[in-house]
């Protein structure tokens, strides 16, 4: 099952001790679930707090006098609107407007940024950034080995994080240095679950102590399986599923993170796609009846499922798919060929899981 070439996070031993099921993911040996199971982990994040080891994700530090101008050139969003202490979501596009990666960037100082990459894209991202840096006074440093990363997510996640911090935690879409249990960390008000929470960028040597302490305080250890069901319920994109170099940001529904006036690489293609429309559009869907569609299942009369699972919160099959643009409106019905069986699906409003209407009821009295 295991391969000697897979990388392990500083929490590998902790995962083994917790009876995690470990699987290869993006070149890493990662926990897909622990003994309580994906649905229990999912529910813990929706109702209390879960902690994920996401140390497989990569980090790149971009610094120098031209750091802002350089990132404005390579990232799709308007980097000048990212203040020190802030966070911003953006894409890297190639010249054809295809998506190379989607990533969060934190501005640590006026001339210093930290970007978190997808594990499977990390090396390509670093190479790409370096190859585009000519003419800019900037340094692109691969600092993936300097960080472990934990995501603490759920309605009480912030409380748990606060309990081990020396001062108030940064708010949503903010990032700040804090001391956690006597150890320095970059605390970020970001996440991938649709719940409140924080992501912690840590010295790898500090990660096990902080992980153990969060578990002791009641956080449920959660694996990549629950991370996927949680993100899919709120329709966050996953690179390799919804995003690839074959898709542009407009058809993926990510026009809101593209500011073509900045002139970023690929912006002319994005501008054209925005003005002229795209042949296909990414939609969220629910299965109407039994069954689950999966990534790669074809849509009858055109299109393809990019992600699919059984929604633990909603109890129905859900997913995302590219559909012909003229049939992508909410309420449109379509058929998916699930291994030779036709399943009915309906385009649904995003997010599929809405905390206000689908969330756990508050106990009264």
């Amino acid at each position, binding site marked *: 099952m295991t391969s000697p070439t897979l990388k392990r996070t500083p929490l590998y031993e902790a995962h083994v001790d917790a009876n995690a099921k470990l699987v290869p993911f993006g070149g890493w040996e990662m926990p*897909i679930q622990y003994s309580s*199971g994906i649905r229990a982990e999912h529910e813990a994040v929706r109702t209390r707090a879960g902690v994920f080891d996401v140390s497989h994700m990569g980090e790149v530090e971009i610094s120098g006098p031209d750091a802002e101008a350089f990132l404005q050139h390579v990232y799709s969003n308007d980097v000048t609107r990212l203040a020190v202490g802030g966070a911003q979501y953006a894409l890297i596009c190639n010249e054809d407007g295809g998506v190379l990666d989607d990533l969060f960037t934190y501005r640590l100082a006026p001339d210093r940024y930290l970007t978190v990459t997808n594990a499977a894209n990390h090396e390509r991202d670093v190479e790409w950034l370096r190859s585009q840096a000519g003419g800019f006074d900037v340094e692109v440093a691969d600092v993936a080995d300097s960080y472990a990363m934990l995501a603490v997510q759920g309605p009480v996640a912030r409380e748990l994080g606060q309990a081990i911090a020396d001062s108030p935690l940064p708010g949503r879409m903010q990032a700040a240095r804090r001391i956690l249990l006597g150890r320095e960390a970059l605390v970020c008000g970001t996440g991938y679950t649709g719940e409140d929470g924080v992501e912690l960028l840590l010295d790898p040597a500090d990660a096990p102590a902080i992980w153990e302490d969060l578990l002791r305080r009641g956080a449920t250890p959660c694996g990549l399986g629950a991370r996927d069901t949680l993100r899919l319920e709120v329709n966050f994109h996953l690179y390799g599923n919804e995003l690839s170099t074959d898709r542009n940001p407009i058809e993926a529904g990510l026009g809101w993170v593209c500011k073509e006036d900045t002139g970023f690489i690929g912006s002319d293609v994005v501008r054209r796609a925005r003005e002229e429309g795209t042949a296909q559009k990414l939609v969220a869907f629910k299965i109407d009846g*039994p*069954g689950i569609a*999966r990534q790669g299942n074809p849509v009858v009369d055109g299109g393809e499922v990019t992600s699919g*699972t059984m929604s633990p919160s909603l109890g129905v099959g859900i997913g995302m798919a590219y559909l012909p643009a003229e049939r992508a409106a909410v309420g449109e019905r379509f058929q998916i060929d699930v*291994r030779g069986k036709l399943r009915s699906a309906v385009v649904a409003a995003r997010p599929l899981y809405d905390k206000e209407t689908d969330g756990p009821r508050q106990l009264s009295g």
Partner: protein
Amino acid sequence: MAPASYPDDLLYHPDHDWARIEDDVATFGITWFAQDALGEVVFFDPPEVGSAVTAGEFYAEVESVKAVSDVIAPLTGEIVEVNTALADTPEAINEDPYGAGWMVRVKLSEPGQADGLLDSDAYVAML
């Protein structure tokens, strides 16, 4: 989830399926090992009563949160009953794989095939 077990009164197929034979009818299901590898089952797509199953070939699909898997028939015959309760409680496949998690009953057309299946000790030895 139930603890690991492999009852002595069943016969096992190497693809992690079991058969409980009573005269010329057998009940099929998947083993504890199979349900553990699969993870939490969220959907069971049953075959139709009256359809034929062939030893070593798949006759149903079982979906976990993670993936879809084929269920392999340990013996050949015709389906005479399916466990319709699994439509509402697919988790029974995890919680009680040899009881409430049974999948189909099959009228055997080649009962002699049972000689080719494994007993509990032999199956456990290959895990």
